């Protein structure tokens, strides 16, 4: 099984780190093959940037993504730049306060990642919340691998704080999925 994930946003949001956590979790934690390429402009903050992660059970030759299974958008400009690369039926995950997706996209999952991070007191942890959300909604990496990698990827002393952020995104994803199940079953719930 091969999964291709594009994460996009602006420089400074921790987009490449988010890609690195996913790739690392897949490669080291889950023992699969994974390739991460990054793209950013000469400006280190504020410009559009992306991380492209391919996760596969076989050797990955071509390292770029042209038809993504999952697009994770943390900025409107990133969304607009990469939405064309999301395959038909692919999943869009986005920060609901920063991205306004087109109505035409069916498989979409919103999370207020930046707002939740602000509530935790650290806006910069929005990327970690998003990783939690990606983990529960897409299952491209296992929960164990993702948690271990988050712990190893963040600065010493911030592990617990980041794991809390991860858990927040993960749980938000689970509740979204349950909400959708209820909706599909004709019930209405708080999360729908």
């Amino acid at each position, binding site marked *: 099984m091969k999964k291709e994930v594009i994460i996009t946003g602006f420089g400074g949001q921790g987009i490449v780190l988010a*890609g*690195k956590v996913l*790739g*690392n979790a897949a*490669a*080291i934690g889950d023992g699969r*093959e*994974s*390739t*991460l*390429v*990054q*793209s*950013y*402009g*000469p400006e280190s903050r504020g410009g559009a940037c992306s991380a492209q992660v391919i996760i596969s059970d076989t050797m*990955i*030759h*071509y*390292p*770029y993504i*042209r038809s993504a299974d999952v697009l994770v958008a943390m900025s409107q400009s990133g969304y607009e730049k990469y939405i064309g690369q999301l395959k038909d039926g692919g999943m869009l995950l986005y920060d609901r306060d920063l991205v306004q997706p087109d109505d035409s996209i069916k498989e979409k999952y919103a999370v207020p990642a930046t707002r939740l991070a602000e509530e935790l007191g650290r806006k910069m942890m929005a990327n970690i919340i998003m990783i939690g959300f990606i983990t529960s909604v897409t299952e491209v990496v296992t929960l164990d691998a993702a948690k271990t990698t988050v712990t190893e990827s963040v600065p010493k002393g911030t592990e617990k704080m980041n794991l809390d952020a991860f858990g927040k995104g993960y749980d938000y994803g689970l509740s979204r999925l349950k909400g959708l199940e209820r909706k599909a079953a004709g019930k209405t719930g708080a999360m729908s």
Partner: protein
Amino acid sequence: MSKAVLTGTHYMTGDEACAEGALAAGCRFFGGYPITPATEVAEHMSERLPGVGGVFIQMEDEIAAIGSVLGASWGGVKSMTATSGPGFSLMMENLGLGLVTETPCVIVNVQRGGPSTGLPTQGAQADMMQARWGSHGDYEIIALAPSSPQEIFHLTITAFNLSETYRLPVLIMTDEIVGHMSEKVTIPDEKTIVTVNRKAPKGRKDRFKLYQPGEDGVAPMPAAGDGYNVHVTGLTHDERGYPVMTVDAQREMMNRITGKIHKNLSHILLNERFMLDDADYVIVSYGVSSRTSYAAVEELRAMGIRAGLFRLITVWPFPGNAVKELAERVKGFVTVEINLGQIHLEVERHVAGKTAVKLVGHTGGTIIPPEDVVAAVKDISGKGV
């Protein structure tokens, strides 16, 4: 002291793997100047070298950086620098000094789009001819092109070993895409890593000649402070190292520095043959473009077109004889590289009109998609685009 060899499996970038390969090879000096997309090599070396008893210096520019590397090598330490296009241009003069003084060292070029400042954060393979002829005068050079973080780890060790064996600077010509790409890198047990150290001189110190080759064509090299009388100059010199401005001295020196490579091609030329045995069409590629090419070969085979890949790991010296042999039996060549046709000139030169040759080039900033290569092979095979 921390460990010089981080045995185990890691998820790291090509730049980090390059630094780890250097440390595993025994490199203990890095003199550099930061430049995207090679900065992470320097950054990683600055974090790691002090912990393993090495020295990291950020110099004032790239001219000084390679100067410090040559100096450190004469101090007896395996030395390296890493840069990208603009810095590589600045290093060209001292690269020549390293060649003519037969100074082992490794120079990494993480290529980005050029000319000039170009595309700092985006990849290209457009410095390949500069690697060959960028410094003035005649010379031979060894340049290796890794295609993944795992390979850059191993090839950095190989680069040091070649450099120490033949006593000359060796180039690693990687690119932004491989440099900034993260993949699994398995670092083997330290005991299984083969490293080579330059030959030390023997015999009477007062009779020592700095450039007198042994039977293998390579002269032993003392370190500063060992007590040998050494004279190191960029002027044409005799075996003692003293300047001699004669036609004979020039010929003798040139034959020695180029002969080390000419006579050892079988050891220096590294390449990989992927599905080449029964191939009608040969894709010649290297570095990140070979990853495009693997994908293209698989697509072409699925269509029933017998394509194969001749992947250059050693790009310089160019494996001309291998291309000549292939040209006798195949129906066409396609060169895939992120420039407007540099190694392609070598392919054309060695195919010498015997069969079709086509370039899939690119002006830089991104990787070439496999479909461009598939289309080119279909084109020369007459099966339509």
